[in-house]
């Protein structure tokens, strides 16, 4: 399904990220089927969908970690042909290096770029303060909580000053309260820097609270089912009626009917 | 019928009784795989053990020190090896007896022509391949040969290795010199550019290979001791009277592994055997000179730090059977 670009992006000649008829298969299994999508510069896009619908794979292709089986992916008009620090992918499992301290982990990308040590020091210190981890610079990942680790991963991502930030269910493994805190942090950071963000999540509320548009994907093969624009001004009230209505809509599209606070799984007699 | 049965019975019993009387006495004989111990091989292969009424189970060892451990742990009854092995173990308290001689020490020091070694003194700083560390040959090398040139084992780089390896190293030039006995000595001279610069038998004759038995054997089976000495004496006489035949008998035992393909020169194994027979002195009697040499060498062992205490030779040497055999003019 062709997706028109939203109003804001009409200012730009090209979308920041342009995905054209992307098909991704692993052997016989087609995970993504002729998907086309445009993401505007500075846009916050969320992708929701059931598990296994190729959301993660899509991010990996955009990040350049996997070459497209068919179709093309362009960033700034140029085909993606490999990973690049300017489009950073944050994984669900924090993937911090256990043998490095928090400081060293955040500094990793800068080390790879062979930046000068003083510059690295300054940047890392600033980022740690940004994500609230200044006290824990000398700690090792296994000494931190899940939420702190994800913050470190975020700091590591931001150290590279990427134009495009790809997030693959970054808060999926965290508890509800930490999730809310980190969602707010992410929003704060984005509002500050206006990077192009693509967030993959299974948490519909999260998508609605953060994104400009919410893309709903179907499962195998992965296609775009629907795109819901969210025009409310941020920060958005989670408890508002409009948000709740949008949530019901999205869930409905996903095939999940809420039954007065419960969720009834279709085609069965269960209520959860 | 009854008569025949009885006759059979009597015959059977008589046979058994007679058989016992004539049954060969079992004896576990051990020797070191060196030409110095040729008399043992002759005794085995020419049946001299058997003709003395001994059922000899002959085992070969690669070195004297290894062999003597079998004597001390009751795995062998009789051994032919370097006499110092009896001394070292007697010093520790083992009950071993030297009862006869087999061979006088023959060890020649051969040096490669291209290493500038003309006399023993030139060995300083050079490499020398020798036999098992701690063996009689080794003790003689350090305490007599090197000493005579004013050298110690620190001045010469001695490598301890099997004789065939020593030979190969000498040929390939990996060592400058080697301390060899027969047949390796003859082979070396025939196949490598070497010169003999010293032979101990010429300068300092000493009893090398002797017959050693556990003390227990002399007390419990004196007849076996006498018979084995007699068999060995016959061997040595045979080797003197019929050297050509002896050479033929010995060739398979001592030349088999050498393989005589040596840089174009082919030498018949028997020739090497004959040469070795000529250069070695085989004698079954320990005389006064032998005993005084043994005393000297025991002193050398003490100087080298191998013996911590004195070992009176009289406690180890027991020449009763030798004396008996001398009287018996077979």
């Amino acid at each position: 399904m062709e997706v028109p670009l939203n109003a804001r992006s009409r200012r730009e000649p090209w979308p920041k990220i342009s995905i054209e008829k992307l098909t991704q298969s692993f052997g016989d299994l087609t995970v993504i089927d002729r998907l086309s999508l445009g993401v505007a510069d500075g846009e916050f896009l969320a992708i929701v969908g059931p598990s296994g619908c190729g959301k993660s794979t899509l991010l990996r292709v955009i990040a350049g970690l996997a070459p497209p089986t068919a179709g093309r992916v362009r960033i700034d008009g140029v085909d993606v042909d490999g990973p690049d620090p300017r489009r950073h992918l944050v994984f669900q499992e924090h993937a911090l290096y256990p043998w490095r301290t928090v400081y060293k982990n955040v500094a990793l990308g800068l080390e790879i770029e062979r930046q000068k040590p003083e510059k690295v020091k300054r940047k890392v210190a600033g980022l740690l303060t940004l994500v609230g981890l200044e006290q824990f610079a000398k700690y090792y990942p296994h000494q931190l909580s899940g939420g702190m680790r994800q913050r470190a991963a975020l700091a590591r991502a931001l150290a590279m000053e990427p134009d495009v930030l790809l997030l693959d269910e970054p808060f999926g493994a965290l508890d509800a309260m930490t999730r809310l805190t980190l969602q707010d942090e992410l929003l704060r950071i984005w509002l500050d820097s206006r990077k192009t963000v693509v967030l993959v999540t299974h948490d519909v509320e999260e998508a609605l609270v953060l994104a400009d548009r919410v893309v709903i994907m179907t499962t195998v093969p992965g296609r775009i089912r629907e795109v819901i624009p969210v025009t409310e001004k941020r920060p958005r009230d989670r408890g508002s009626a409009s948000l709740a209505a949008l949530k019901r809509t999205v869930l409905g599209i996903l095939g999940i009917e809420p039954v007065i606070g419960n969720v009834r799984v279709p085609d069965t007699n269960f209520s959860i | 019928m009854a008569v025949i049965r009885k006759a059979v019975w009597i015959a059977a019993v008589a046979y058994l009784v007679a058989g016992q009387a004539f049954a060969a006495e079992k004896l576990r004989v051990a020797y070191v795989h060196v030409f110095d111990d040729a008399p043992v091989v002759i005794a085995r292969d020419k049946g001299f053990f058997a003709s003395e009424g001994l059922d000899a189970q002959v085992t070969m060892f690669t070195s004297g020190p290894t062999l003597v451990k079998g004597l001390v742990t009751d795995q062998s009854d009789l051994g032919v090896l370097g006499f110092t092995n009896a001394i070292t173990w007697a010093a520790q308290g083992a009950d071993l007896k030297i009862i006869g001689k087999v061979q006088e020490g023959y060890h020649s020091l051969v040096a490669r022509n291209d290493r500038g070694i003309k006399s023993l003194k030139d060995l300083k700083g050079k490499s020398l391949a020798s036999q098992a560390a701690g063996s009689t040959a080794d003790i003689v090398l350090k305490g007599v040969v090197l000493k005579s040139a004013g050298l110690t084992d620190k001045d010469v780089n001695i490598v301890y290795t099997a004789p065939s390896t020593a030979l190969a190293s000498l040929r390939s030039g990996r060592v400058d010199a080697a301390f060899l006995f027969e047949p390796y000595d003859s082979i070396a001279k025939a196949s490598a550019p070497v010169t003999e610069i010293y032979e101990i038998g010429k300068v300092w004759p000493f009893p090398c290979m002797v017959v050693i038995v556990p003390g227990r054997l002399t007390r419990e089976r004196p007849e076996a001791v006498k018979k084995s000495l007699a068999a060995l004496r016959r061997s040595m006489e045979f080797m003197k009277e019929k050297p050509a035949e002896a050479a033929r008998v010995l060739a398979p035992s001592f030349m088999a592994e050498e393989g005589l393909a040596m840089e174009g020169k082919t030498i018949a194994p028997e020739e090497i055997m004959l040469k070795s027979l000529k250069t070695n002195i085989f004698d079954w009697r320990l005389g006064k000179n032998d005993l005084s040499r043994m005393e000297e060498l025991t002193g050398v062992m003490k100087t080298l730090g191998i013996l911590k205490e004195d070992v009176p030779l009289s406690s180890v040497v027991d020449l009763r059977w030798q004396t008996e055999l001398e009287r018996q003019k077979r």
Partner: protein
Amino acid sequence: MADRVGTAEAVARGGAAGFWHAWLVRILPYAVALLAILAGWQLSALLFPAYLIPPPRKVFSRLIEELGRPAFLVTLGRSFYRLAVGFVLASALGIAIGLLCGIWKFFRRAVRALVSILQSVPPIAWVPLFIVLLGFGDAPIILVIIIAAFFPMTVSVMNAVEQVDGLHLDVARVLGADRAQLVAKVYAPAVVPAIVTGAQVGFGNAWRSLIAAEMVGGVNVGLGWFINFAGEIADMTAVLAGILVIGLVSALLDGLVLERLKRRLLRWKYL
């Protein structure tokens, strides 16, 4: 770690008595094992003549005597020298080849095949061949040590390289790392635990092969040579003293040196 906690707890609970109790619990198994060995030894010494099995007392005093003799220290030092050279070379080689295997699939398969064939040959079986090829002296011994220590290290590192977390590699790639940086920043630190394991196993092999090779021949100094020579001149006391040295050195080097090294390198795990 648990021991230390236990000690602290014990102290908190029972003061000085608690401390001694905890310490005793830790030391007791070793003490019992050692006593059992000594008892067995003393028993055999009673059953066998002294020239075959000397009693522990005699061997210990001989050991102390030997440690005071410069000739013995020189011989021991030579063994250490061979061990050091061989072990360091083997480890370096093992790590390098193990890492290479991680990056290059063809190389990995080739090395695996080579390892499976050669690994089963006992290192000292090579000694006669090496003496012929390299002559007498330290070279054949060191080569044997290298073979003994190389395989465990290579296999350990190779396996660790294969098991490196793909996620870690993706992170580095996304951050723009090239192949060399992948090796240096992901593979190398990730395989450090495997290197330590490989070193510990390899060290045991190296020490054992060193002694064995020195006994087989071609040398005139070294701990293995010392034991061999003593055996040849009926000096069983020295033989057992030498064996004691083998055990002590191994325990010291492994327990003190290697263990310390492990804790330093894997600080991040133990903190």
